[in-house]
């Protein structure tokens, strides 16, 4: 009996030793490989652009002989995938963060890009993400969002784009369409779905507006205690969305992003809050440039005559500082090629959107062009301040409260509580 125990223990020890030895030798050999020539491993965030990345990677390898691997994380699992991938021996050399809050998790892994050729290609310093003085991330796409309008339906209802220049105008038009919706055959707004595939349009993007105007008033660009000065405006626009929509407010909890997109593409509603990334989806569904336009989301705050689309970025490239020198250099070379060569810039502007680099190719994305027109007409774009939202948890809290308010199982006070108190709580929690 005793013999058996000894034997068993011996076996366990032996096996554990093999396991560890296995890990050890692996690590050794891969380091040798990487010192021979640099390699690039990009952990891509945008599933919709996966195919384009694979192609461009192949093309780069053919041109330069440098191996480029692109792996795309499944939608909504980027943080999890990155946490798992980055500890591997063959870790991503290139990954992305979504702004200052996301950077907090990964700053230990961000290579300082200040002296890199990539940084020099940026059109403005404001597109770099700083960690102290170090350049931790480089924005690679500028996007805009607002209210996408079906102009055909709007004119059928007897209005044109020029009739909407403020929140009061929008409210008047929307409520008039609702009043005549059975006669017109369509509604004002697509469903403001609060399913996980759609709720970010409201708990994050729409919530950006009250935050932006509060920051503007105070002249700040981040805060650990939001006051909620413009929450009445937030309520007004939310009420407008849910009460002039294709479905009853109580059903919003289960409406998805696809629902809203289909309603809009099928001509069931005039207005659809979304961004420039939605252009390809809408044109694929048969909508044309003549039908479409994007207008600012007016909430009745600030100087509405000067308000533009919401334009900014939450996609920053970061180079893994833990990678070998050769890999880091190879990665920077690859990115520089992406933003300077014809093939690279063409792929980025066609598949991703506007890129903030000096040699960017021009785009045919209508919503991006709309944004340019607004800026040229002297309007100020609303900046993306939702990158300063304290946490995913905060967004979920606001989303939950908005859903409950829409369905009538919660009150607006709960939304205010989740917005204002939640903000302070979450900032305190992350400072622990």
């Amino acid at each position, binding site marked *: 009996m005793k013999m058996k125990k000894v034997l068993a223990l011996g076996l366990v020890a032996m096996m*554990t030793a093999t396991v560890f030895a296995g890990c050890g030798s692996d690590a050794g050999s891969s380091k040798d490989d990487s010192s021979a020539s640099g390699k690039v491993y990009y952990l891509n965030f945008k599933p919709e652009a996966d195919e384009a990345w694979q192609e461009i990677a192949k093309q780069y390898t053919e041109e330069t002989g440098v191996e480029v691997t692109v792996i795309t994380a499944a939608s909504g699992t980027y943080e999890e995938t990155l946490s798992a991938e980055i*500890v591997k021996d063959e870790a991503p050399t290139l990954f992305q963060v979504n702004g200052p809050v996301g950077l907090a*998790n990964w700053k230990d892994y961000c290579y300082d890009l200040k002296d890199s050729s990539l940084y020099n290609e940026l059109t403005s310093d404001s597109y770099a993400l700083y960690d102290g003085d170090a350049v931790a991330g480089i924005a690679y796409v500028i996007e805009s969002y607002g209210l996408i309008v079906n102009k055909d339906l709007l004119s059928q209802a007897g209005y044109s784009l020029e009739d909407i220049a403020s929140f009061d105008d929008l409210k008047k038009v929307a409520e008039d369409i609702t009043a005549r919706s059975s006669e017109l055959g369509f509604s004002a707004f697509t469903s403001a779905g609060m399913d996980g595939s759609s709720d970010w349009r409201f708990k994050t993007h729409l919530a950006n507006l009250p935050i932006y105007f509060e920051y503007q008033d105070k002249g700040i660009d981040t805060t650990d205690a939001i006051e909620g000065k413009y929450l009445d405006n937030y309520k007004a626009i939310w009420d407008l969305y849910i009460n002039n929509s294709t479905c009853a407010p109580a*059903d919003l909890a*289960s409406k998805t992003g696809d629902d809203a997109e289909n309603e809009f593409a099928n001509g069931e509603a005039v207005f659809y809050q979304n961004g420039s990334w939605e252009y390809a989806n809408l044109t694929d569904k048969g909508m044309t440039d003549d039908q479409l336009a994007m207008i600012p989301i007016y909430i009745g705050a600030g100087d509405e005559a000067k308000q533009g689309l919401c334009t900014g970025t939450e996609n920053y490239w970061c180079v893994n500082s833990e990678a070998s020198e050769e890999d880091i250099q190879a990665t920077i070379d690859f990115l520089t090629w992406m933003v300077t060569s014809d093939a690279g810039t063409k792929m980025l502007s066609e598949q991703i959107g506007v890129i903030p680099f000096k040699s960017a190719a021009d785009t045919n994305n209508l919503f991006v062009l709309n944004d340019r027109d607004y800026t040229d007409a002297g309007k100020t774009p609303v900046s993306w301040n939702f990158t300063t939202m304290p946490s995913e948890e905060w967004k979920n809290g606001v989303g939950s409260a908005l859903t409950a308010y829409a369905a009538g199982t919660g009150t607006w006070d709960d939304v205010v509580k989740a917005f204002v108190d939640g903000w302070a709580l979450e900032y305190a*929690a992350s400072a*622990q």
Partner: protein
Amino acid sequence: MEKAIRKYWPIFVLPTLAAFCVGFIYPFTQGLYLSFCKFTTIKKATFIGFGNYAYAIRDAEFWHSFWFTALFTVVSTVLINVIAFAIALALTNKIKGSNLFRTVFFMPNLIGGIVLGYIWQILLNCVLSLLEKPLLALNATYGFIGLIILMCWQQIGYMMIIYIAGLQSIPEDYIEAAKIDGATTRQILFKIKIPNVMPSITICSFLTITNGFKLFDQNLALTGGEPAHASEMLALNIYNTFYSRTGPQWKGYGQAKAVIFCIMVIAISMIQLKVTKSKEVQQ
């Protein structure tokens, strides 16, 4: 043969033992160590002591999800086992097409949890919408009932198969003898069938209890913990602790919760095994 086994047993045990060590012992030990650390990735962990456990124990949401999970486990274990046993009884009664029924009841078990969660979410939301009641994501009670319906639907078939196997292994002579002695159907059920299927009851209740505690996919897909964490179960709570905030401390808190969770599940299933095992009879 006996002798050969006695001599070479280590070779037979080795593959499973190796898998167990690689797949369980090693990650578990590492997880245990990480629960005392702050970390973003497992390679850069800073040891901080018992702080994570202190936080986990004070976290009200964690305890809410614990009680929610416990209630769910009790209700689902009872319902699944009673219904599965009843169906197994019915289908061992030589009725026509019993093989077809067995296949049909077993089938839901072949569908993945996430898919089931979304399908049931659509179904239940339609029903709730027709009844003009708040949808699943708005009311924790409906969320709870939805989860119970979903889990029953998915697991009854599996448990039924185990019970059928148990019932079929009862020697015919026991039942025949009882019938000759004048026992009623009721008496046969409680005095002969149930004591003889105790091993199946042990394994089925073990599976349903642990499945109940560990439930994740279905919870994530069906309710996502809405409204405001009210229908969040333990595993989902741990996941959210990990990923819904940034900063190294949250991974540590999540890890500490995961260790507490693991110990609780082990303790509860040990007690259950002991209790039901003691009721098993030797044939």
